[in-house]
């Protein structure tokens, strides 16, 4: 009898934290960064294909609905990162791991920049996952190699953006800036929204946003480099199409 009771007692936490309880839902809590506790809201759900999806809000850090990446759920454990947002060049993405400690509670860690902080979460509501921004195809006029120049810090930088459409899929872009050195910027997002084209590298905080001017055949806009925003006009490298 004693043995049976012990076995039952041992089973309680296993049942509470086990395979029967999934991490779906809205989780709210705090990351205990020393001197700056950050309130977080994490939404986790399955999409139409059954794959895990999610988004995060980090109050005070300017994050609202950033998509979760590399979500791994293993029984009572969940791990994910938030992609290029707060990615440290040396230490990789901001990453979370958590373990279900009760039906509606998780505890774990958040890592960023090689630092580690405790994470405490409570399930408060059904998940409200924000859809992640996705690249789109771009107009046929735009699928070309574009060149331009801007000046920053007292010397010129040459820009080349090459936009390419793919059948049935989103466009891709190559974004190269040549100043005192050549930087081939990895592009995360290419979108055409109305008449606006945006080519963005989240990790590098670099973007071009502009409008296609049919009269001049130019893409007129700005290049965003971290804090700086500088006007930039792009022209087709081969001149105007006939």
């Amino acid at each position: 009898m004693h043995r049976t009771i012990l076995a039952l007692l041992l089973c309680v936490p296993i049942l509470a934290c086990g395979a029967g309880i999934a991490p779906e839902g809205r989780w709210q809590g705090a990351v205990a960064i020393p001197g700056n506790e950050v309130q977080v809201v994490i939404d986790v759900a399955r999409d139409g294909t059954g794959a895990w999806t999610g988004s995060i809000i980090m109050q005070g850090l300017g994050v609202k609905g950033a998509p979760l990446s590399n979500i791994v759920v293993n029984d009572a454990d969940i791990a994910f990162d938030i992609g290029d947002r707060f990615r440290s060049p040396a230490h990789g993405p901001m990453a979370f791991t958590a373990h279900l400690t009760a039906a509606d509670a998780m505890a774990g860690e958040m890592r960023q920049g090689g630092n580690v902080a405790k994470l405490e979460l409570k399930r408060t509501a059904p998940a409200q996952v924000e859809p992640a921004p996705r690249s789109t195809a771009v107009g046929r006029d735009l699928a070309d190699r574009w060149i331009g120049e801007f000046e920053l810090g007292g010397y010129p930088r040459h820009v080349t953006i090459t936009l390419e459409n793919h059948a049935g899929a989103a466009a891709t872009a190559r974004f190269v800036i040549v100043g005192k050195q050549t930087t081939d910027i990895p592009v995360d997002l290419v979108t055409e929204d109305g008449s606006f084209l945006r080519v963005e590298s989240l990790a590098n905080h670099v973007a071009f946003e502009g409008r296609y001017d049919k009269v001049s055949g130019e893409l007129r806009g700005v290049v965003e480099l971290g804090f700086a925003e500088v006007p930039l006009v792009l022209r087709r490298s081969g001149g105007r199409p006939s």
Partner: protein
Amino acid sequence: MKRTCVVLSLAAAFAGGMADAQSTFRGDAAHSGIYPGEGPRQFHRVKWKFPTGDRIVSSPVYANGAIYFGGDDGNIYAVDAADGRQLWKRSTGGPVAASPAVADGVVYAGSYDGKFYALDALTGAMRWRIATGGERRFEAKGLHGMQPKNQTIADPFDVYLSSPVVGGGSVYFGSGDGSVYAVDVATGEVKWKFATGDVVHASPAYADGTVFIGSWDSYFYAIDAASGKEKWRFHGGEDPVIHNQVGFQSSPAVVNGVVYTGCRDSNLYAIDAVTGKERWRYNNKGSWVIGSPAVTQGKVIFGTSDSSLYLVVDAVSGKEIARQQGKAYVFASPSVAGNTVFVGVLNGTLEARDLDTGNLLWEYYTEASRRNDGWVLTADRQFNGPLLFWSNWREAPIVATARQFGVGSIFSSPLIVGGVVYFGSTDGNLYALE
């Protein structure tokens, strides 16, 4: 009793009009950055630390047994070099973000209250005080790309005030009102005022009857110390778009007829002290050179901001001799004692490096940098940029900068006296290491 002895020794020394070589910013009027004696080749202990009410950006100076420095808490301090006990403090109306200069028993210092003070070195009593045209930070619309673009934003990296230098019966200093001042040391009378086009927060060097100083107007000036007339001017880089790569925040060193100065345009310049012609420049590819270079044994030693480099170049040719990759921005000026160079880093590290190789001998972390509140630093003590500068909107970059400087950053250039290294930190402590 010990305190009485220090006071007595101060009195005796000042009565004779004696001044120590370490009694001005960068050790001497020419700003060589060289300090007599040896510095510690190994770290043994914190000899003492002196807490103040706010961050310390000022570089300490030494005269007759006392350490003098300014605090952002608005005070000018005199502290016993031996035990770190306060000898006196004098309040001003604003942060004292510059080094005092001590000469003939008088401490000279400027404050963000727009006033310049002459105090008795022994007691802190006021000798005289004058008002400048008022302090202000360098500012511009769209500064560093910050938004809103149409709003003028004060530069959060303009942390220093101009440290005075004494020579030829005058004390010289720059001001946020855009002028360089020459003031009679005895009377406090303004002898001349030299107008530049923008904020002057670099510190003047004095050599051969000439005052050398740069302005945020992008020009570096040589001014006749007696008359206040311009001898020559040298044009640094311009950056009309985001004003990031413009202005002389660095203070010059003048050695063997050459002026060495850093610039926000990312160059270290060597300029002929007589003609104002450029001898050479060393380009740092966008990284500011804020500190004053140290010059010794034919070498020019300096640090950079974003690239976080410790560099040694040949004083004659400008060719690189040594380079070491640091972990964070260097704004403070390197100080040389014997064969050791001491450098403060904005991640709250005091580094001791070998003069010949630049190799790290030892390092000390300030208290606040060990706490690393808000994860300002990564685990390997680099600035955690992604977590700090995630927005360019409104005050976010300014808040981020304030947070960045909250890890016990060392803007203060080390002072070395008798084998002890003294420096201030933004954690509010003046440290004495040996």
